[in-house]
């Protein structure tokens, strides 16, 4: 099948039909991986996103970076649906980095679907109208008697023309006015809402997919970089002669810190990509520069280095909690009265959660070819990397090295994980500086230890909780003191309260205060920032209060929601209590809530709202006498509006459950005099396959706008599991990871 186009759908069908003995022949033309459109036939561009070849092949550009969240498949599905394309005919190509054509081209905050759904529908509808216009002209019939489906335009009489036949004339049609476009009735969808395999599955399964780390540029050298073990330190000198004499080493030099690289137009990135001082080694292959790195002896200037100490942070936080106070964020009318009312029952708990790392499976890396300016030709740069916001690296090139952004070409590659880490481009700044100084095209690869030590961590923190329930079993007071971290007086990403958490938004007598401690360790966005820790504290403490009131947890939680309403009408980023109640009840029902559980087992519930998503989870856990616990099943109910790709959506939920469990069970980053104490996976493990629970996913496809699912299924997992452990054992866990309390995930 050399000449035959490789279609994922064909492949899927073939594998399903073939059953046993499937041996599909595969021969990918060299350019098929780069650009699905065959170059042998004429291809017509209908808009920036859609090309149709005369043989009927449809190429759709996927605008946003892919890190495993499935967006490279999801957004083109929306275009194909509105066009009336047959998905079998579609080849998806990752769009070049060109914000003028493709907009923000960023992946973060579970925003890609939310932000792009209507834009993608317009692109598809626009292409469809141009195809119908072409058919009307060629078939000499009225537009109103034509419809587009299965990659054809069909007339009421039954006559039809294929998209391929229409393509070149369609490309000459006037571009429709966006306001006049109409969209398909969702009931007639044939692609949206179905299960579509990720468009890159074939190249991934055969080892042909190209990640940033796989980039190979002619003349390219390889580099390692070594920062001061205490962040903020800089290199004074090192054993350069010894390093340069090692096999495969080409050059070695010091880079000084450079704050200019941290200037960023996107506010949340400002300051984060500052070039850290260190030693670069350039060589003939990755191993040579890694082996040389291990032999480095560096004299560091640590006068401005971090002295962060996790153990001291814990002690200080406890002292702050005992003292009270803090910045007042919200005041309930009678919180102290309710807490001291002897008729009420009260409870207090100090919660803590650690710093955690992203540990993307693909360590950070970046390839840069810096070309010096010559007479009449300005300096230029070509950059290859996996990034959640690839266009942003142009700013680093301009700010740090004076290369004008228009002379910087960025190639965004598939990411071996992102989770927020690849929103920050410190590693790209290093690669640029190394290519600039060495004058060579260079691929910088971090070791796993670099990747952990140099992370922008999920910030740790503490919350001191007090609550009261009235004699009739209702919540009477909620007092929350958040003790987090700030850098130069500004809370770091993910530290603090957003202000729209439960129960505060639906309950009047709540007080919230916040105290911030200084931190020098770098912090960043980690899958559902803020939410992934606040959910643990708040949803655990609501369970504590339900137990104190001797109430059923589902009943107590849904009662808190009150009447069915939007908390902030018209704002999809605010909670809808009715939808919350619906997912809670659905998860409970599907999990068999209320059934009698055997000794040593329990069900635990949690609900959380973030990223415009309502998610409830019920964990079923068994615990033995030695505190070995197994999460047998997690039942999930999600409302993110209509689902675009059912298989992708379920995959995101399954992954969020595993990620959440891995993190709460096993993971903790600690600082000792500034140095990160975990060097590799033997000290910072990731959950292995044997601990994987059954995961039962249910969607309520409400009339919400479709919103993203990369993050919101993660936050409820930790409290669902600890609430289940309480149900099974009576032991309340207020600290993550659970391994610190002697609980072992099996």
């Amino acid at each position, binding site marked *: 099948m050399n000449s035959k186009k490789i279609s994922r759908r064909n492949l899927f069908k073939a594998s399903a039909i073939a059953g046993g*003995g499937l041996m*599909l022949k595969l021969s990918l033309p060299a350019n098929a991986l780069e650009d699905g459109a065959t170059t042998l036939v004429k291809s017509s561009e209908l808009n920036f996103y859609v090309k149709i070849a005369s043989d009927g092949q449809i190429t759709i550009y996927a605008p946003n970076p892919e890190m495993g969240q499935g967006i490279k498949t999801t957004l083109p599905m929306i275009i194909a649906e509105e066009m009336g394309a047959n998905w079998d005919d579609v080849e998806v190509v990752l769009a070049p980095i060109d914000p003028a054509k493709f907009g923000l081209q960023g992946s973060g905050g579970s925003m890609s679907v939310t932000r792009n759904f209507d834009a993608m529908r317009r692109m598809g509808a626009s292409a469809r109208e141009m195809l119908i216009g072409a058919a009307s002209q060629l078939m000499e019939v009225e537009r109103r008697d034509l419809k587009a489906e299965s990659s054809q335009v069909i007339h009421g009489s039954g006559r039809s023309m294929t998209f391929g036949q229409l393509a070149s004339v369609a490309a000459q049609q006037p571009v429709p006015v966006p306001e006049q476009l109409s969209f398909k009735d969702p009931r007639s969808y044939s692609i949206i809402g179905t299960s579509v395999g990720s468009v890159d599955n074939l190249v991934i399964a055969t080892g042909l997919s190209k990640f940033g780390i796989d980039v190979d540029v002619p003349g390219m050298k390889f580099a390692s970089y070594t920062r001061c073990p205490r962040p903020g330190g800089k290199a004074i000198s090192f054993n350069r002669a010894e390093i340069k004499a090692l096999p495969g080493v080409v050059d070695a030099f010091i880079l000084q810190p450079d704050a200019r690289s941290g200037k960023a137009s996107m506010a949340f990135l400002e300051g984060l990509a500052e070039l850290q001082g260190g030693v670069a080694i350039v060589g003939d292959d990755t191993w040579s520069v890694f082996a040389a790195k291990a032999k480095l002896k560096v004299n560091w200037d640590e006068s401005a280095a971090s002295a962060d100490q996790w153990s001291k942070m814990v002690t200080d936080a406890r002292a702050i909690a005992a003292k009270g106070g803090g910045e007042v964020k919200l005041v309930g009318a009678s919180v102290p009265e309710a807490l001291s009312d002897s008729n009420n029952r009260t409870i207090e708990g100090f919660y803590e959660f650690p710093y955690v790392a992203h540990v993307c499976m693909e*360590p950070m890396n970046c390839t840069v070819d810096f070309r010096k300016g010559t007479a009449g030709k300005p300096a230029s740069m070509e950059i290859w990397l996996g990034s959640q916001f690839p266009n942003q690296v142009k700013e680093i090139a301009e700010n740090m090295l004076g290369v004008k952004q228009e002379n910087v070409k960025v190639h965004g590659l598939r990411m071996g994980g992102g989770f927020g880490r690849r929103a920050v481009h410190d590693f790209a700044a290093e690669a640029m500086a190394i290519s600039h100084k060495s004058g060579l095209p260079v691929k910088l690869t971090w070791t*796993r230890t670099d990747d952990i030590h140099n992370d922008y961590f999920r910030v740790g923190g503490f919350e001191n909780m007090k609550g009261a329930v009235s004699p009739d079993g209702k919540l009477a007071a909620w007092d929350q003191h958040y003790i987090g971290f700030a850098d130069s007086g500004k809370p770091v990403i993910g530290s603090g309260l957003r202000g729209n958490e439960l129960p505060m938004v639906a309950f009047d007598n709540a007080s919230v205060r916040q105290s911030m401690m200084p931190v020098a360790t770098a912090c960043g966005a980690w899958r559902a920032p803020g939410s992934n820790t606040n959910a643990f504290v708040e949803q655990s403490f609501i369970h504590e209060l339900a137990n104190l009131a001797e109430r059923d947890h589902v009943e107590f939680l849904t009662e808190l929601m009150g009447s069915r309403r939007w908390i902030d009408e018209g704002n999809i980023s605010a909670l809808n209590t009715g939808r919350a109640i619906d997912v809670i009840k659905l998860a409970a029902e599907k999990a068999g809530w209320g059934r009698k559980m055997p000794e040593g087992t329990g069900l635990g519930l949690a609900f959380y709202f973030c990223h415009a998503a309502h998610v409830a989870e019920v964990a079923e856990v068994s615990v033995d006498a030695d505190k070995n616990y197994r999460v047998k099943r997690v039942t999930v109910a999600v409302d993110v509006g209509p689902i675009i790709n059912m298989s992708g959506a379920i995959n*995101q939920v399954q*992954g969020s459950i595993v990620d959440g469990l891995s993190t709460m069970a096993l993971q903790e980053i600690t600082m000792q005099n500034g140095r990160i104490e975990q060097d*590799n996976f033997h000290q910072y*493990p990731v959950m292995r*396959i044997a601990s994987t629970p059954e995961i039962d996913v249910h969607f309520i496809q409400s009339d919400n706008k479709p919103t993203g699912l990369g993050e919101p299924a993660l936050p409820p997992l930790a409290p669902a599991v600890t609430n289940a452990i309480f149900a099974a054992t009576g032991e309340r866990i207020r600290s993550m990871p659970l391994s610190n309390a002697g609980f072992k995930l099996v």
Partner: protein
Amino acid sequence: MSKYTLSVNGENLEVDVVPDMPLLWVLRDKLKLTGTKFGCGIAQCGSCTVHIDGVAVRSCVLPVSAVSGPVTTIEGLAPGDDLHPLQSAWIEHDVPQCGYCQAGQIMSAAALLSNNSQPSDDDIDQALAGNYCRCGTYVRIRKAVHTAASFYNADKRNG
């Protein structure tokens, strides 16, 4: 530097490298076979799994001088343009998310299936215990291995 002749995916290839260079970097940087991935360098994550004489090994800690048999990587798992049943099953179950670890997962699973054509969940958990998936695709990996085993067995019955 020393010269080594390696059998990789059925081809004999000569490389001139230091004896302690791990097979991983010989494959990736010298032979440009980048399907085998770097994850940790200490045999903890399994991203670098290849076969030597059909046995799954972590290529990130195996010096090239210690390679004792024919090497198979993800690129050579199935002969020519064929797909291995595991690769078909991975596509059918839409297993990958980021995809970075999947070559290693498939290589570990392939070593399992060659010895045990009807693995239980426990067998799969044991054979894949050395392979991290940071995205959490474990549920689908298990299913895909079972599906591939059924392809395998049907294949055998059909001769």
